[in-house]
């Protein structure tokens, strides 16, 4: 019986792309690599206690005094586990991936909000991207960027970008029609309407999307340890290979603590935006 050679097509397609765009991917690779190393260097420049204090102050300003104390205790625990360096590395990967995902996702979301055809085109693509098992994205990352942090960022961006696009598009589309008419009736251009009315009003929803992107990025960065992302995911990965239950559990707790701090900070930015 005939078997559809989809896998072969994809293989040769990716081969073609890696050969053809090697210059592009190498350039991209270098930029990302510099970004990550710079970020890690900056974060490691501070002694852990100072960084914990800085994050504590940020959490106090944005969440609450209680949130601040809990954040500092959690980070202190990580330091105590001796997991500070992998945590900083994970932190840097998440931030880099999120920044790229937002820089690419926000404009795409705006286009999807304003253009019906593009919205109809991109919706199934986003659905596809979100239901595809996360591991699958790791494979094409390797031929493009080789093993390492850049490949991890690439896979993470692909995996975590859908909420940024989707929430931006929905946030703008769901604004009350009468407000859009009000803006139009005074002769606002599309750009004026976007900057002064649509984006500020949709900001809470867009921030919700960014929050989701950060959470997805964090989970993907851990998985990406399989292709050499290192960081906390790397610790977990090693623990799996050596069946070191305790080590895996400690790294797991560190990931949860980071996730909670990221989540609470972004959630509270959303709340403050609404109020």
């Amino acid at each position: 019986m005939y078997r559809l050679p989809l896998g072969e097509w994809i293989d040769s397609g990716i081969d073609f792309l890696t050969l053809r765009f090697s210059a592009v991917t190498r350039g991209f690779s270098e930029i990302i690599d510099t970004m990550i190393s710079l970020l890690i260097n900056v974060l490691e420049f501070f002694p852990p206690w100072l960084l914990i204090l800085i994050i504590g102050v940020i959490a106090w300003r944005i969440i609450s005094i209680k949130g601040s104390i809990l954040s500092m205790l959690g980070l202190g625990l990580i330091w105590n586990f001796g997991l500070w360096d992998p945590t900083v590395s994970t932190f840097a990967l998440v931030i880099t991936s999120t920044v790229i995902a937002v820089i690419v996702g926000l404009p795409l979301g705006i286009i999807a909000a304003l253009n019906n055809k593009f919205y109809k085109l991109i919706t199934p693509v986003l659905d596809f991207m979100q239901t595809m098992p996360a591991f699958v994205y790791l494979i094409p990352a390797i031929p493009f960027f080789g093993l390492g942090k850049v490949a991890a960022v690439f896979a993470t961006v692909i995996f975590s970008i859908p909420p940024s696009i989707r929430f931006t598009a929905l946030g703008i589309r769901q604004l009350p029609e009468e407000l859009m008419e009000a803006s139009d009736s005074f002769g606002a251009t599309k750009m004026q309407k976007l900057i002064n009315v649509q984006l500020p009003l949709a900001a809470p929803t867009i921030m919700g999307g960014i929050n989701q992107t950060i959470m997805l990025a964090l989970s993907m960065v851990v998985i990406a340890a399989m292709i050499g992302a290192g960081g906390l995911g790397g610790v977990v990965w090693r623990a799996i290979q050596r069946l070191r239950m305790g080590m895996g559990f400690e790294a797991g707790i560190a990931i949860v603590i980071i996730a909670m701090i990221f989540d609470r900070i972004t959630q509270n930015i959303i709340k403050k935006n609404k109020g």
Partner: protein
Amino acid sequence: MSNIKIEVKNLYKIFGHRSEEALRLLKQGIPNEEILDKTGCGVGVADASFKVYEGEVLVVMGLSGSGKSTLLRCINRLIRPTAGKVFVKNEDITEVSREKLLSMRRNIFGMVFQRFALFPHKTVLENAGYGLSVKRETKEKQRKSAQDALELVGLKGWENSYQSQLSGGMQQRVGLARALAINPEILLMDEAFGALDPLIRTEMQDELLELQAKMKKTILFITHDLDEALKMGDRVILMKDGRIVQIGTPEEILTSPENTYVRRFIENVDFTKVLSASDVMVKPKEVGFIKDGPVTLLHKMRMEGKSGIFIVDEEHKLKGYVTAEKAGELAKKHEKDISLIIEKYDKQKVTLDVQVRNLFKVIVDNRYPIAVIDDNNVLKGVIVKGSIIAGLAESGEFDV
């Protein structure tokens, strides 16, 4: 009322993909429902033609779904008509370039929305200045014009508040200020007071009329409330199923409704608010003159079957009222000069334009009939209790 500000010619708006086919069917006289079945298209506005003159308040009135809001949005092209022309200051807005359209919206139109449509992330002042910020006026000019407009609608001191801190009535004042701040020639008001509760609504209507007396804008006012239409409108357009059923002054619509649809509407109108003293008064058949003697007056009263009579001078200016009782006493004493027994009639007279609902109190407080006079104190008519009832019955308020 000579300059035409807006002229709408054979305007059609059909919603749906197969609008051209629907338009053809519509022009053949196929009913709206059938068009919806056949083409899946909804008829918004069908063959609307009318003019709006400079400085008038033209009210478009109809039930929900009658196409009145669609019609309004065709005027500033928030909705693009399927066919027909809309001339605004002799410029066909259906044809102009997008640039020209934006400039027209920025300079000619001020629009007020049913649910206010204020920007919740902006302060009252920023909301009021929105039109000017779109025009890229200087910050100073924006603030000044916005502040002036807010003062005009009575919101001075609220500049830094947000929408969530204001009551419904105040929110709509901001909406009105936002429209007025760009000093538009034409105000488009889409059921502007429809979301307000009745007391506030009446207040806003009165204030808008007061403002309009000073501003003399051209106003196109949409409402589903006939009372409001009759109160606000210099002329009223009645719409049904996208078509204009009747255009006329409130008087014309009330007194000669063009078809049963209009008549139905009018049946629910509170006529005491619409009719004035001149509509319910009767002509005084017999009046007494200053020079008449008491016997003459008694004779005139007997002819009329009344127990009193109005006294006027040669120019028919009202002098007072004489009762049969007093005239009889005077006749017994063989006196001729009736000026001794004339009762001054200050409280019992009203001018022609007083609303009927305000007559009830006057009539209850007085034993004598009410005199209706014009601005020169000339006696124009008489109102007794019976004539109000009769006046209302004639207009269809009561089934008699």
